[in-house]
């Protein structure tokens, strides 16, 4: 299989139509972080298998088309407009036997429109065209097209190992768990061919045996005994038919429970450290949240103070001046009243009049002024004469009301303004103090997160609050222990039943032979059964031998790859050791002693070497090479390791497509030693240069270098 080109149409960050042509050899797509490499990687998977890889989350099957369309295109769709988006892949496969090359055009295309403000999906199609020199062009769509891809072009099971994200390599092969290696060998190896032959032989044997017994029934030395044996054989065959299909299921369940039990045991083993880390993390998170909250309150307080008080700073001279003007008004008004009420000196004022009213006596003429009398009422009418101006107009009185309202404010406002500088200073001090504390806690948070990540890396699983619930872990382990025991008992029972039935069948068949009548009507099926039996034994032995040989080959090839990549590194002499009986992988030194102090880069090299050796072995046996497509595989490797790795990849794979951010600096060195097919670069651009770089305002431009 060879990928000729990929065409991207308004797909994720790739706005408009953009094409990449691939050739044999190493094809490099270089781009910085966030330039769209992972999205390009996803375009292969989405087109062929309708799934995308989401960083930190894993695979997402059948993603929402509205998440796939270019954000800027989606944002600018106008009423009634139809927009297409999708991916087209042109590839070819070689039929080794016939020498024919078949060209495939595969496309996954969606279309949207905007109607009454709503955006609707109006097309979501998956098509495959292939151009066979004998049969001409043929078209398939949807499920049929998916089946052709899976069976004839690129099995999805295999795809994870040949097209992978650097990030997901840990999930593909885990050195700590034998199951992950067994899975990959089972997925890719050719052992299944032998197992298919075994199945065919069993079916053939059953059919021939039926014919044999029919013939023997007609012509046997002892009919009664034959009937007894025939009945017994049928009974045992049924037992095998019932028990055999359960074996795989039981084994699968046992493996699954063992993995889960192992995970729980590891959690328990690392309980103390986990507990301490979680406590540290929670404490930090708690303090950090409190600081953030305090900063938020301070920010609110700052804005409120600013609006109510601080923004008035600088206005004091104007306010003082306004006070002068209001006083000026009051003086003017008083002078007006005084002018009108310019009373003679002997006219008593309000204070004296009140005294007269209280004593019920006019102190001017010394007459009685009893309450209710004419004299008393006269004195009363003289009260408040200054306020009862007849000269001041209603406008002046309105102004007086306003000024009476306003004149209390200046002193308070001036006092507030005088405090502004001190308050701002205090605010700044508090802000600086909290920010300093926040920075400290943030750095501490990052340190703890790194500690947790390293610890999780060591555990191979993530830690959370539930991981320290000892009682729950113990319950889980007990539960899995009992499930495993039960399933193992079932498995042993089934195996014993099958073994017993098989041995009975073998013995009964021998006995049947004795019942044959050796005359001219000799039964040919008897000899055929002998041959099939020999064949079955041979295949059984072959499977065991071939599996061991395959593991040895994989081990040898993996070690060759590792030493090739690390040839420049004299300090690390790591060797891979695979046990063919239990599929465990060990990394050892030259003396066969286990190596524990490998860094992430070395572990990545070892894992990729094992994967590459299995794929190259599989390609040889199945006679179908696949292109190698990978995103950021070398991010944890050093400069020299990266070049050695790419060199190795280009040796193993006829075509490889590598997306990376690290390669341009080493391009001269790479070109010297590796056959380069094509080089492309991904560059993020703004749709509108004057606006900021948001998702809707950026796209990726692919350019050939």
């Amino acid at each position, binding site marked *: 299989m060879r990928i000729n080109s990929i065409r991207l149409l308004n797909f994720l960050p790739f706005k408009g139509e953009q094409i990449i042509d691939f050739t044999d050899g190493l094809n490099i797509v270089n781009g910085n972080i966030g330039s769209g490499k992972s999205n390009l990687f996803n375009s292969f998977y989405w087109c062929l298998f309708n799934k995308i890889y989401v960083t930190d989350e894993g695979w997402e099957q059948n993603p929402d088309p509205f998440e796939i369309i270019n954000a800027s295109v989606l944002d600018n769709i106008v009423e009634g407009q139809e927009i297409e988006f999708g991916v087209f892949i042109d590839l070819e496969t070689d039929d080794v036997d016939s020498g024919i090359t078949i060209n495939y055009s595969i496309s996954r295309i969606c279309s949207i429109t905007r109607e009454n403000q709503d955006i609707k999906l109006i097309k979501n199609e998956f098509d495959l065209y292939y151009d066979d020199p004998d049969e001409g062009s043929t078209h398939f769509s949807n499920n049929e097209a998916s089946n052709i891809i899976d069976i004839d072009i690129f099995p999805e099971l295999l795809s994870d190992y040949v097209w992978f994200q650097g990030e997901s390599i840990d999930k593909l092969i885990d050195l700590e768990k034998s199951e992950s290696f067994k899975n990959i060998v089972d997925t890719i190896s050719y052992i299944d061919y032998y197992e298919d032959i075994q199945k065919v032989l069993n079916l053939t044997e059953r059919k021939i045996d039926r014919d044999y017994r029919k013939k023997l029934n007609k012509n046997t030395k002892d009919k009664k005994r034959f009937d007894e044996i025939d009945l017994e054989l049928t009974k045992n065959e049924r037992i095998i038919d019932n028990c055999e299909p359960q074996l795989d299921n039981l084994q699968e369940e046992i493996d699954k429970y063992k993995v889960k039990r192992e995970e729980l045991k590891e959690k328990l083993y690392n309980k103390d450290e986990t507990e301490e880390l979680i406590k540290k993390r929670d404490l930090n998170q708690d303090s950090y949240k409190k600081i953030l909250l305090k900063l938020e309150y301070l920010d609110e307080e700052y804005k409120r103070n600013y609006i109510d008080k601080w923004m008035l700073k600088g206005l004091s001279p104007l306010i003082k001046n306004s*006070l002068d003007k209001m006083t000026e008004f009051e003086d003017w008004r008083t002078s007006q009243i005084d002018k009108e009420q310019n009373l003679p000196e002997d006219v008593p004022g309000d204070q004296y009049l009140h005294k007269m009213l209280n004593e019920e006596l006019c102190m001017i003429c010394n007459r009685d002024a009893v309450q209710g009398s004419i004299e008393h009422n006269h004195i009363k009418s003289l009260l408040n004469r200054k306020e009862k101006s007849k000269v001041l107009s209603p406008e002046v009185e309105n*102004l007086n009301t306003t000024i009476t*309202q*306003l004149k209390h404010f200046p002193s308070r*406002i001036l006092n507030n303004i005088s405090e502004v500088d001190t308050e701002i200073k205090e605010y700044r001090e508090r802000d600086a103090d909290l920010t300093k504390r926040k920075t400290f806690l943030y750095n501490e948070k990052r340190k703890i997160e790194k500690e947790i990540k390293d610890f999780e890396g060591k555990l191979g699983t993530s830690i959370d609050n539930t991981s320290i619930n000892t009682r729950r872990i113990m319950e889980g382990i007990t539960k899995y222990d009992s499930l495993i025991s039960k399933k193992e008992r079932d498995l042993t029972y089934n195996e014993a039943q099958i073994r017993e039935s098989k041995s009975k069948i073998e013995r009964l068949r021998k006995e049947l032979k004795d019942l044959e009548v050796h005359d001219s009507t000799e039964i040919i099926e008897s000899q055929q059964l002998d041959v099939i039996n020999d064949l079955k034994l041979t295949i059984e032995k072959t499977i065991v031998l071939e599996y061991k040989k395959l593991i040895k080959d994989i081990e040898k090839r993996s070690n060759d790859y590792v030493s090739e990549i690390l040839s420049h590194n004299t300090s690390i002499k790591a060797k891979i050791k695979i046990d063919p009986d239990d599929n465990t992988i060990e990394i050892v030194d030259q003396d066969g002693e286990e190596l524990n102090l490998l860094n992430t880069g070395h572990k990545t090299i070892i894992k990729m070497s094992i994967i590459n050796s299995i794929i190259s072995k599989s390609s040889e046996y199945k006679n179908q090479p696949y292109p190698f497509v990978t995103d950021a595989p070398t991010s944890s490797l050093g400069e020299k390791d990266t070049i050695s790795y790419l060199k190795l990849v280009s040796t193993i794979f006829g075509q490889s497509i590598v997306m990376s951010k690290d390669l341009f600096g080493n391009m001269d060195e790479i070109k010297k030693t590796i056959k380069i097919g094509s080089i492309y670069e991904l560059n993020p651009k703004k749709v509108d240069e004057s606006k900021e770089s948001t998702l809707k305002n950026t796209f990726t431009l692919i350019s050939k270098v």
Partner: protein
Amino acid sequence: MSQGILNQLAPMSPKFYVSNDERIMKNFSETGGVKSIFGEKFFYQRWQPFIYACIIGLLHNHKVPFENRGNDKISPKVFDYQTIISNGYETMVTVILCVVSLSDKGYNILSDPQLINNDISEYANGGFEILNRKLDNNEIEGITYFLSEVKNRDNLN
């Protein structure tokens, strides 16, 4: 019965150009409905940046009368003085006192709410002119500007 100036002003609305509403008032306040140029809003309500602009106009004694600006119309009513009085009584009083202080009519302006509204609007218009110039020169880079601006007012007096 006599009525104070605050009561008389309450139902009136200040004047400002649509361009100033769009570029400054909406951009600076959370109720503006547009994304802030700072990524974060400093003021909560739309009257706050208006009063801020008015204070800037008063501080610089920069009063700019309204004229026919073609496409840039006077904004239709967005808020009235009652909103300002209810949410920032002392701020409103301060602005009126400053208008009195700078007015040729002296305290007499307090008898004319229409004239006070006009003066407040024209000082805000002057303040907007100053703020627009600062935005053009990229002098307002983030919300910290407002605090530094207040700090720097010492040089004005």
